């Protein structure tokens, strides 16, 4: 009864093709937006913002980026971490070349560098498929990581070899650097993530998104009915790397404040891949859920385990967390290989008829 579409008639094409055609969905999204934009800023502590909400949103954007490539276009990539790194390093270079530029513009521009690199490493996908492609994307991962270490120009010849973000202001408000308020940073990350999600959701509903899905479902068949694999695959790589690049730039600018090349190592790629897969391949809401699950679970375990009376060393907690996360991933893959998005889908089906057994 809670989630019935009966009685909601669409009288225009616009209404039929709206992103949220159901009234319940619109109410739900309004509630979530109110939570994110009003309730969280009013109630959250700085710890909650910096260690949970901001990274969650950043990872959600990265997971959406990978989802475009893996979930929608069917190209498995293990180089996400490096593409995020490209975004971070190009944003850093852009801010040092144009110190007065608007930071948001810099962020959004840095994604284009990442997209270009992504297209270059996406070229093999025209010949190579499946797991072989996944391994070749590791070439991007290791090569770019090497570049971050060995090309001093990228980090302005710092002695530390890391990129550090200096303090910058936007309209009189400090947005980056140690002096920036977590709340400001949270708002910027939230706006960018939501804006780009909206953009991607429209892209996916459009011509190009449908081409990606055709390539994913069967590339030869798609080619036969007139989808050009070159444009479809490379545009997927471009959009995906763009989103990952912006996420990487935000990660350094609004969350970490400084980053070493090891921040963009293969473990980051795996983390984002887990978010995408556990959230659900080919689902944007799933990317959010996956990011929340993978990011918040270890943080929660770190907080919960000691408070339950297990008086254990910090190291042990870390080992246990690794074990529990690994076991839970396997458990989730076994119980619901289509991810959290699928669980949400099933819940909605149940809600349609609830509290009656049949609709």
């Amino acid at each position, binding site marked *: 009864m809670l989630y019935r579409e009966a009685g909601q008639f669409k009288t225009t094409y616009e209404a039929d093709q709206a992103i949220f055609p159901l009234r319940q969905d619109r109410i739900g999204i309004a509630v979530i937006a109110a939570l994110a934009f009003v309730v969280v800023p009013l109630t959250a502590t700085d710890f909650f913002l910096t260690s949970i909400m901001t990274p969650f949103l950043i990872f959600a954007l990265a997971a959406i980026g990978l989802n475009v490539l*893996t979930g929608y276009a069917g190209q*498995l990539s293990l180089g996400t971490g490096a593409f995020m790194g490209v975004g971070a390093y190009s944003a850093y270079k852009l801010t040092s070349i144009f110190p007065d530029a608007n930071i948001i513009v810099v962020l959004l521009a840095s994604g284009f560098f990442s997209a270009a690199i992504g297209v270059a490493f996406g070229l*093999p996908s025209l*010949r*190579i*498929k*499946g*797991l*072989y492609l*996944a*391994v*070749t994307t*590791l*070439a991007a991962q*290791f*090569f770019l*990581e*090497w570049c971050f*270490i*060995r090309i001093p120009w990228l980090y302005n010849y710092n002695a530390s070899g890391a990129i550090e973000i200096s303090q910058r202001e936007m309209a009189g408000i400090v947005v980056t650097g140690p002096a920036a308020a977590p709340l400001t940073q949270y708002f910027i990350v939230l706006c960018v993530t939501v804006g780009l999600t909206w953009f991607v959701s429209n892209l996916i509903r459009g011509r190009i998104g449908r081409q990606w899905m055709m390539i994913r479902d*069967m590339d*030869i*068949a798609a080619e*036969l009915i007139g989808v050009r694999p070159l444009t479809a695959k490379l545009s997927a790589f471009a959009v995906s790397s763009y989103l990952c690049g912006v996420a990487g730039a935000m990660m350094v600018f609004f969350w970490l404040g400084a980053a070493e090349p090891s921040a963009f190592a*293969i473990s980051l790629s*795996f983390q984002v*891949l*887990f978010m995408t*897969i556990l959230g659900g*391949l080919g689902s944007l809401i799933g990317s959010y859920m996956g990011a929340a699950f993978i990011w918040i679970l270890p943080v929660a375990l770190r907080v919960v385990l000691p408070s339950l009376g297990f008086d254990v060393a910090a*190291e*042990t907690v*870390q*080992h*246990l*967390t*690794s*074990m*529990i*996360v*690994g*076991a839970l*991933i*396997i458990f989730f*893959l*076994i119980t619901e*290989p289509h991810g959290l998005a699928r669980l949400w889908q099933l819940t909605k089906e149940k809600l349609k008829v609830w509290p009656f057994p049949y609709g």
Partner: protein
Amino acid sequence: MLYDIFVDPFVQMAAQPDFLLQVLWEGFVAGILYALIALGFVLIFKASGVFNFAQGIMVVFAALTLVGLHEHGVPAYLALILAIAVMGLLAYTVERVVMRPLVNQPEIILLMATIGMTYFLVGFGEFVFGGEPKSMITEELGLPTGSTAFQIGERGLLILQHIDIAAAVIAIIMVAGLGIFFNKTRIGRALRAVADDHQAALSVGISLNQIWAIVWFAAGIVALATGIMWGARSDVSFALEIIAFKALPVLILGGFTSIPGAIVGGLVIGFGEKIGEIYWGPLVGGGIESWLAYIIALIFLLFRPQGMFGERIIERV
């Protein structure tokens, strides 16, 4: 610039042939070890279509079990047998808990499951054995540790570590043993049948579950051998896990399903990596070992997408 890339390295090679031989030997040993890891991957991929990302951590885990048991006062050879038993137990558990419920899932899900296993084993291994590096019990296992120097020409010198020779010999024995196992024994034939066609194998009464447990066990033994060899060259620690990433280009070069491919690929990558690092590495600032293998494999794959010995991929709509 062009001279530096195309001429100078060869001039250097010709100038110091003994050094070149040393580099080639290093490359050969590295290649053999990569081939061993790749072999573990191939065994499992052939029989179950699972791309086993956990092979690297299995290497570490096996070596740690061996060393850890020995530290607790278990004699070396008994520890070796116990480590094999632990790998058997692991294989059984993996088959029962992870692989059986995930049968018929898409390959990416299986890949993810093995990455999940990696997380679990890293946490478990560190929890049980601690995170600090341990040294491999090379002497206790009766492996040679010295080195021999050969005089080459008038002033040249070639130094061979005995452990490297032992590694090469053991790897060759292992590959030969696996070859005999696959071709001559009943279980080996069943394994190949499963690799060819799951359903056909099932229909003639081969138990898939049993076969999978066996291949995971075989991969575990290969992992133990790799762990001993690799651990003897450096310490046994979780840093060894990254050698799994070294083995991946070997795999795509050789093809996921081919044992000869794993060996030839391993040697190509081993030689290429060492020669590239020594002679061309300084041009770009060194450290190119981490990605050179991938680039070699990538370029090769552009011309032959299924790897050197991989089964030809035929696609139909």
